[in-house]
């Protein structure tokens, strides 16, 4: 009933080119990025996308590489939808939505090769840097995906990690006083489109998310796509898909500019 009414209202507005929060169909909400607020993290960023708030922290530690990639560092992305962020989130291990979000962001970072994992090898086959990227939702007003991805990217870009040294005995030691940036190869940007009726909107807020038919999340690096995830309980035509990707690409440009302004990154 009420969701149906809300859907109708949102669709009526959309058909006249407007959205519930006053935006145009292809407008992002205001973006705020605040880096380095967490002293105990090597990197951190809080990102506000309208009223949606996510925080990402980067921590590093020494670990052993995977057997099939002995000369590459290890990157782990984890996301928690904290009960603090929404009346619908419950304490406990990540549910399918949090897991999907973490894995989509992970694929984007990995395929864009944002962090050059080869440069994170210390002793091949023995010791590499592990980079932990933890994402926490703090306030959920829709599109946690893009806010989280942006927070992860900003935290990685501004991280300052200690130096590892190998002494004569082959032992690895860490020098915490001398810090350096992570080796960055590219900046992937993630943009989510929602399909509501026959309209496509960018950066859906919570009201829109609740009534949307489907979502298309795409991660861009240098005008190419490196990760896509269609979500939601209805389908999209091939034409809608291509159009959504095209709009998302433009928005990714905008966001990339914002990121560069804030962090001065690569």
């Amino acid at each position, binding site marked *: 009933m009420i969701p149906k009414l809300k859907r109708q209202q949102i669709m009526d507005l959309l058909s006249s080119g407007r959205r519930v929060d006053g935006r145009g169909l292809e407008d992002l909400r205001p973006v705020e990025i605040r880096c380095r607020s967490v002293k105990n993290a090597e990197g951190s960023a809080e990102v506000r996308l309208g009223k949606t708030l996510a925080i990402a922290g980067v921590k590093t530690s020494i670990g052993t590489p*995977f057997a*099939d*990639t002995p000369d590459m560092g290890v990157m782990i992305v984890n996301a928690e939808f904290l009960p603090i962020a929404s009346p619908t989130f419950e304490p406990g291990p990540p549910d*399918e*939505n949090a*897991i*999907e979000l*973490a*894995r989509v962001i992970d*694929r984007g970072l990995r*395929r*864009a090769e944002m962090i050059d994992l080869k440069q994170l090898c210390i002793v091949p086959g023995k010791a590499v840097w592990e980079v932990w990227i933890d994402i926490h939702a703090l306030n959920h007003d829709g599109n946690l995906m893009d806010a989280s991805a942006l927070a992860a990217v900003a935290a990685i870009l501004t991280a300052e990690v200690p130096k590892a040294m190998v002494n004569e005995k082959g032992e690895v030691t860490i020098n915490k006083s001398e810090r350096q940036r992570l080796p960055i190869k590219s900046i992937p940007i993630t943009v989510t489109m929602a399909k509501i009726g026959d309209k496509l909107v960018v950066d859906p807020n919570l009201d829109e998310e609740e009534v949307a038919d489907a979502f*298309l999340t*795409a991660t861009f*690096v240098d*005008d*190419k*796509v*490196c*990760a*896509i*995830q*269609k*979500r*939601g*309980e*209805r*389908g*999209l*035509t*091939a034409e809608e*898909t*291509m159009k959504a*990707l*095209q709009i998302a*690409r433009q928005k990714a440009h905008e966001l990339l500019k914002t990121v560069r302004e804030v962090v001065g990154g690569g």
Partner: protein
Amino acid sequence: MSIKSKELTLISPDGRRLDGRRPDEIRELKIKAGILENADGSAYVEQGNTKIYAAVYGPREVHPRHLALPNRAVIRCRYHMTPFSVEERKSPAPTRREIELSKVIREALTPAIIVEQFPSSAIDVFIEVINADGSTRCASIIAASVALASAGIPMKDLVAACSVGKINGVLVLDVTDVEDKYGEVDMPFAMMPNRNEITLLQLDGILGPEEIEKAISMAAKACKEIYEKQKNALKERYIELRKTVEEGFRT
């Protein structure tokens, strides 16, 4: 987590893949409906060495009750791999990958199900991967879709699925495990061929805009081919059932 050795030749100069296929060719696909007697509907799919059982239970009561929806059926889906289905034994506990795949498979199937017909009830789709050789989520969707139809669940369309890969720069259909590991791209794809709606689309790897368009069109074409095999499997099941019933009368 995989060795990326770009030198590995996955496709020969004359356009043949490691298993002899052309880029736009899918593997041999066997579909058998109604193989598990306890389930309300079931299917077994063999696509090359990818082997999958799917079973559908429902519509049935939802436990715990508060998960039920008053105006539609809840679709639940579990994609699970047996420990021995992969090269290194995996723990039987669900991994993060299995949890994500369960979600996207459910979202690939749901658009085809007339959920309004069974308010306050659940339709459960269980998928077991017996042997994994690439494209397991697509084979799961093929199997689950047939299992749903064979359970008599009213559907708008069947869902067909096929992955697209990119190996040594060439777009190919129905990716194997080795093509996934050493290739550049894996793009799982599902659609309702009759309604022309894409219900699953994932991309893991870099593609330019034209490549995506081409990949989608290749996948859509393959889905139409697979769709026919799904319908055939259902027909065979129907004939089999009719025979059983008629034999029942005779005895």
